[in-house]
């Protein structure tokens, strides 16, 4: 079993009210280093067998058709061995 991750982000020119809300909250909590926040979505997709060019092409199609709206969002597809849950577990969180 292999994992492919699709990251979806609002296009730079599209207003991101959620990211702005998070950015606005940070100084109130004493976090002063962050200068901008954009909020997007991460999809962890599991596929059977090996990741081939054909598999990646299909995932690109999934990302383009359903996971993102090309009018307002950009997406990026990449292979990733570990899920966020696995990374967090290993880090002891």
């Amino acid at each position: 079993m292999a994992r492919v991750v699709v990251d979806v982000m609002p296009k730079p020119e599209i207003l991101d009210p959620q990211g702005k809300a998070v950015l606005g909250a940070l100084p109130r909590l004493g976090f002063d280093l962050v200068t901008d926040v954009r909020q997007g979505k991460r999809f962890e997709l599991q596929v059977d067998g090996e990741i081939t060019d054909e598999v990646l092409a299909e995932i690109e199609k999934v990302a383009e058709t359903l996971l993102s709206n090309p009018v307002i969002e950009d997406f990026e597809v990449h292979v990733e061995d570990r899920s966020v849950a696995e990374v967090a577990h290993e880090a002891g969180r």
Partner: protein
Amino acid sequence: MKVGVVTFPGSLDDVDARRAVSIGGNEAVPLWHGDDDLRGVDAVVLPGGFSYGDYLRCGAISRFAPVMTSVIEAAGKGMPVLGICNGFQILCESHLLPGALIRNDHRKFVCRDQRLRIERVDTPWTSAYAAGAEVTIVLKNGEGGFVADEATLDLLEGEGRVVARYLDGNPNGSLRDIAGISNERGNVVGLMPHPEHAVEDLTGPGTDGLGFFTSLAEHAFA
């Protein structure tokens, strides 16, 4: 005329829309999202609400409901289709209309009586209005900000496809105060405010919304 009103899981205003269709002098026909049969209707209304819980993006999953395959095909042949609020979002996700609707710029849900100017009146949904008519109908949305790139906005303006524009202040950050648009032919109209909630004196801000439901008959006889 027979006007179908689609119920998706999470539709809220389908009953009000059917009632408005009847008050407007047409026969309301309930349509089901999971059924691709349009039951011989002459026009379709996609009502407001939170279809599929607004999961992923508003309207993103409804777009792939079986009924939408038939609606998209019929719209392509010229059938009048009106998408209200969540219905507008579904029409954009279906690429029947350009642009997209994103979260309100002020991040709050807005619910108020909204003044609008009706700008395109040669559509089957707006022919009962005089060009430039100023009306008040209900607006209620959390993700009603209409966005599109500059070229698309210029195209919409240039071809006279802005159907309605907000007056007295922009309630949700929609670019160029756009409240509703149409496709090139004019048979497909998307509108963020809710005319179906403004068809009777007893409830709502008045009857200014009725024209969206009486236009069909006028258009048919025109």
